[in-house]
């Protein structure tokens, strides 16, 4: 053996002819050369290697299993008396990676490498919700037992008995003592069977009966506990090839097909839950990296993606025809809405969408002296091909007004109006063809980093961003131009069509913006353990293209039927059917969108802009502990908001003085800036929102020592805006009034994350066995993620909104001098509802959109994973993982009931919490790595 070693050494020495140093170092050098040759680490050795190389592929196979037998019963299910919540989930797959080999043709060696992964998933998972639906007597027209939220009888009035009150004093507000219209309640509060609408009766066959009695007063009587069914299969592949050292090519792709079958809320075609959906995702990218010199690198890449989905494929019958609802030819179940009860049908029941994106990127980096320069250019183009009708089988909204005592809240009921077939609003979506939207964006960026001194590094950059607006392949786009004159009434606001009458193909301008940014890193003490960092950036957000066919109204009709007075006359009767559209499609005349909720695009050059600044101090303390203390500011304006927060056709609140007169549709519309329209649909694209966020944070990281890695993060923040919230904006004319806590702001968030290799087994202080016991002791580790966050601001709302359509959203009133806090907040009472009052009819609430200090309950979650690895030979591992999500089975309280009722019928549930949610989930995983 020694002869062999000596031979190798001698060969090396003779070849190298090295002479410096002692004999030992010469031996070391020659050994180095010989070994590196043997291991194929030298270029000449690789070239001389003729024999086929041994292919070493590696990868893994795995299975993750979840089953309800392993789980705790979720708290929300247990509280409804459930004993089981079905869960079956299998997630499985493999990965294989190594040199690319084509037998007898090509061996990738170190130059061409691949990695391919497959993952499949099959699951059935129960979902539960608690909702309110009509009682069985109510379905038959018997409202004799029905009570309001305070437990008082709820009278239902017969609209056929409506007549003017000769004694009405127009100078006084409408009240029970001064009624403008008289109307008689149904005898015994029962609607006679002959009066029940036949279409509504047929539709009710698709509406399930109550199955719970959580209450109070027959509310929360429908417990949904049904499984959703999902499947998915996907692949990811990557190929990497280096050519002549300085050129590298990377190719990657991914394919995924999925099916989502959401938990049905009804076991019938009237199911209001999301429709089943099929997904198809395709992605691919190609990158070339050229190393020009050690100090200059260039990369060029192209990526393409296609995400397609089809929804509601199994629900394509024309149910309106089956129900006898004439004039509706669209597929799907009609969308009947009668809040507060669960609706039948839904919006967007059928759709087909494909989103395709193409991205080119060029990036050049170079370093000269202490300066680092990066120049990049990107070009993106996107396509959205979509068929997305909102109400193909129509939407029919029913209100309490037609069965109420006109002008008096807490009388009548939307579902009673439905039983009579009296809709206050109806709309159809007639979509003749899909839309093919296109847009593109380009940007060029310059970034410069300068190491000014050994203590200070400065960087700055600027991005020039150019965005083209949305166009449609066949110019099938329309919007309302708020400056064009409408021929129907001579007022401003008329429909315009892309590419016609002097209008460009796009409605919005090309946007060109500069986005600057700068920052520094400074070691003030001359000690690298302490670093101060500061940064500033300003950025403009892209205007997205949504999947909906918003902005195509002239080509795709939305016949709309509006009640002349929601308390006196319906928009239509279901039994009479829906009148045919007045004009054939396409209707591109300037008045084509009149008397509808018209699609409105912002045509200005406004674009959402964000600014941010941060300052942090980072210090590495002894024991590999890094502490970071920081503060951050961010703010934005012209953020895109939707119909809940933007209404360019809003009536000024001063008009509330007209009181009940506002219920007259014609009078109401006459007060609007654009009276020819019922309203506008701005589809989450109106640039109006503002926000500001200030935060401070503390991060402590403990790097691995004794197998333990720990990370702790705490943040305190305050975020305010003028648009967010579950209910929307009350006053569209005074944005300052809407400035309040952001609806989702959680001022305190805390997270703790740790990874711990247990101190057992080989190379560990404990239980290091040389024999078979090492298989038990080696390879244990634990991971933990714990999070806590305080609650979101409480957003209260009044039970009724009797403002004649002037205020889309109504805030509550604050009762002066009453403490809104309770001494021991809990499920019985979380806040004091007596501190708030229902606003009087035709007046605004004086409370803020979100409460300045009352918050919903906090949330916490603790997840734990325990892993055991078994060594299988030298290079293989069998790994078993048990993951406990919410492993301590903590129950987070639901939010309290935020509805404040009127003084004569207070909501007995206000401030109370119904139940809690959450439950431990266990997932078992097995992975074999080779």
């Amino acid at each position, binding site marked *: 053996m020694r002869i062999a070693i000596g031979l190798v050494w001698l060969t090396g020495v003779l070849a190298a002819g090295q002479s410096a140093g002692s004999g030992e170092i010469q031996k070391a*050098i020659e050994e180095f050369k010989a070994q590196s040759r043997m291991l194929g680490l030298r270029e000449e050795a690789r070239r001389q290697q003729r024999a086929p190389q041994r292919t070493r592929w*590696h990868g893994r196979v795995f299975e993750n299993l979840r089953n309800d037998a392993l789980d705790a019963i979720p708290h929300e299910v247990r509280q409804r008396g459930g004993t089981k919540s079905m869960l079956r989930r299998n997630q499985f797959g493999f990965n294989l990676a190594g040199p690319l080999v084509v037998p007898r043709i090509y061996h990738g060696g170190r130059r061409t490498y691949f990695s391919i992964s497959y993952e499949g998933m099959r699951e059935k998972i129960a979902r539960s919700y608690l909702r309110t639906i009509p009682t069985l007597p109510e379905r038959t027209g018997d409202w004799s037992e029905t009570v309001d939220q305070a437990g008082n009888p709820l009278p239902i009035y017969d609209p056929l008995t409506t007549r003017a009150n000769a004694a009405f004093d127009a100078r006084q507000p409408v009240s029970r003592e001064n009624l403008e219209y008289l109307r008689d309640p149904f005898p015994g509060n029962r609607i006679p069977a002959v009066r029940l609408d036949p279409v509504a009766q047929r539709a009710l066959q698709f509406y399930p009966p109550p199955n719970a009695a959580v209450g109070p007063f027959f509310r929360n009587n429908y417990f949904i506990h049904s499984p959703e069914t999902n499947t998915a299969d996907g692949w990811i592949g990557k190929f990497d090839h280096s050519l002549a050292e300085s050129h590298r090519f990377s190719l990657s792709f991914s394919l995924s097909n999925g099916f989502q079958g959401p938990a049905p809320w009804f076991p019938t075609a009237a199911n209001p839950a999301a429709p089943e959906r099929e997904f198809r995702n395709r992605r691919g990218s190609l990158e070339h990296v050229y190393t020009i010199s050690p100090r200059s690198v260039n990369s060029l890449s192209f990526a393409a993606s296609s995400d397609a989905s089809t929804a509601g494929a199994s629900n394509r019958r024309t149910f309106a025809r089956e129900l006898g609802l004439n004039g509706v030819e669209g597929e799907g179940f009609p969308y009947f809405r009668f809040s507060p009860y669960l609706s039948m049908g839904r919006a967007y029941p059928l759709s087909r969408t494909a989103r395709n994106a193409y991205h080119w990127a060029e990036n050049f980096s170079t370093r000269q002296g202490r300066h680092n320069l990066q120049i990049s250019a990107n070009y993106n183009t996107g396509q959205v091909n979509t068929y997305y009708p909102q109400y193909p089988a129509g939407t029919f909204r029913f209100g309490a007004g037609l069965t109420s005592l006109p002008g008096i809240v807490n009388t009548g009921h939307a579902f009673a109006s439905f039983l009579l077939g009296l809709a206050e609003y109806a709309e159809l979506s007639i979509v003749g063809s899909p839309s093919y939207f296109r847009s593109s964006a380009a940007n060029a960026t310059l970034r410069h980093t300068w190491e000014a001194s050994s203590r200070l590094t400065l960087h700055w950059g600027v991005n020039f961003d150019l965005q083209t607006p949305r166009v449609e392949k066949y110019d099938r786009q329309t919007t309302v131009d708020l400056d064009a004159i409408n021929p129907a009434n001579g007022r401003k606001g008329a429909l315009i069509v892309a590419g016609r009458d002097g209008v460009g193909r796009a409605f919005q301008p090309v946007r060109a913006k500069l986005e600057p940014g700068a920052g520094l890193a400074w070691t003030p003490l001359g000690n690298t353990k302490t670093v101060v960092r500061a940064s500033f950036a300003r950025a403009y957000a892209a205007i997205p293209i949504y999947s909906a066919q918003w902005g195509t109204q002239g080509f795709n009709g939305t016949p709309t039927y509006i009640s002349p007075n929601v308390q006196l006359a319906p928009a239509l009767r279901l039994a009479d059917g829906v009148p045919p559209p007045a004009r054939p499609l396409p209707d591109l005349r300037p008045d084509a969108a009149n008397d509808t909720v018209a699609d409105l695009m912002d045509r200005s050059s406004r674009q959402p802009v964000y600014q941010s600044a941060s300052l942090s101090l980072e210090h590495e303390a002894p024991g590999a502990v890094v502490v970071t203390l920081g503060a951050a500011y961010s703010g934005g304006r012209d953020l895109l908001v939707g119909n809940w927060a933007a209404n360019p056709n809003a009536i000024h609140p001063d008009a509330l003085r007209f009181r009940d007169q506002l219920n007259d549709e014609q009078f109401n519309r006459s007060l609007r800036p654009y009276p020819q329209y019922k309203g506008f649909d701005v589809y989450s694209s109106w640039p109006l929102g503002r926000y500001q966020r200030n935060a401070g944070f503390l991060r402590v990281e403990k790097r691995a020592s004794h197998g333990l890695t720990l990370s702790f993060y705490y943040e305190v923040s305050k975020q305010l805006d003028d648009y967010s919230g579950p209910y929307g904006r009350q006053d569209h004319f005074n944005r300052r009034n809407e400035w309040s806590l952001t609806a989702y702001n959680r001022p305190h968030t805390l997270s703790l994350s740790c990874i711990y290799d247990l101190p057992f087994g080989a190379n560990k202080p404990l239980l290091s066995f040389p024999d078979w016991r090492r298989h038990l002791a080696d390879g244990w580790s634990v991971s933990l993620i714990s999070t806590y966050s305080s609650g979101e601001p409480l957003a209260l709302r009044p039970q009724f909104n009797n403002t004649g359509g002037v205020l889309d959203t109504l805030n509550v009133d604050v009762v002066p001098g009453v403490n809104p806090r309770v001494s021991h907040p809990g499920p019985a009472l979380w806040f004091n509802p007596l501190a708030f009052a229902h606003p009087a009819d035709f007046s605004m609430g004086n409370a803020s959109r979100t409460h300045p200090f009352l918050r919903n309950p906090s949330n916490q979650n603790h997840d734990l994973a325990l892993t055991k690895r078994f060594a299988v030979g030298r290079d293989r591992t069998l790994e078993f993982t048990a993951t406990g999500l919410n492993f301590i089975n903590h129950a987070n309280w639901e939010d309290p009931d935020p509805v404040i009722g009127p003084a004569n019928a207070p909501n007995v549930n206000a401030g109370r919490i119904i139940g809690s949610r959450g439950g431990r989930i266990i997932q078992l995983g097995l992975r074999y*790595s080779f």
Partner: protein
Amino acid sequence: MPRGILAAICALGLMGADAPRVLRVPVWTEARDGEARELSPASLKVLAGGGSGRVIRVLGPTDELLLVLALDLTEELSLAELAKEALAEEIAKLPPNVYIAVLRAQDGLKVLADPTNEREPVLRVLRELPVAGKAGLLESLPTALRLTDAVLARSAVRVALVYVTDSSIYNYRDDYINPVINYSDQHDLSRRFPEGLIKEKIARLDRQLAPFQTPLYVIHLNYRSDRLNEAYQSGLMQLASALGGESRFCRSRQEIPEAVRSVFTRILRMHRVDVEAPARVADRIQLQLESDLGPLSYRNRFQLSR
């Protein structure tokens, strides 16, 4: 002689080299007065695997050192350049008994410079090394250690392996990040603890590398604090520590020269103590060293079989 046969003989020679159960222990004197002292066999007492071991040889800071520098620079040009400058500065200061070899780790391990105590060829290689490609540290470690361990076994010089890297776990050719494959799968909890794959790789490497005896040093130029990279970086720390070396992670550019300096200083002060393990002890050996010269720091766990 045909090259295949020669290679086979070499391989057999390597296997045979482990026959005497020798532990090559990196040792540092931690003198109380702050001065590093040279150890000698007589000044050391050894307890290995419960029995007393025999000190065969002691090499100290004045003996020859082979410093194998493995560069894994793939991400950011400016950090890599700073590291190169810091390395050049430290290399220029090295005494002539230090020999340097340079390897490139990205895209597979490759020798860039053979061991030499001439500085210019090494500096030239450093200057010319491109910053590109895919990270290669994890894949190249066993091979690099096999190379250095062979040198350690054949020659009476001190040997250290230093990796300088800026790699992110996201820049490996192999998949350690377990990316989402099915975007429509909304209830996937298997990625809640995403570090599983990298932890598994580190555990496997820990097992594979345990028999090697060359101390490993890692200088990471760009510390990242996302969960996956934290697991990766902790893994590097664990591997370096297990092999008797150490790791440095730079959170800012300013830290890079200091990290390089500190690692080089540590290596220059390193002793190599060869200990013959008692004949009848297990493959996994716990070692205890004591010296009259003061407290010592050293690698104390070894595994003899491969």
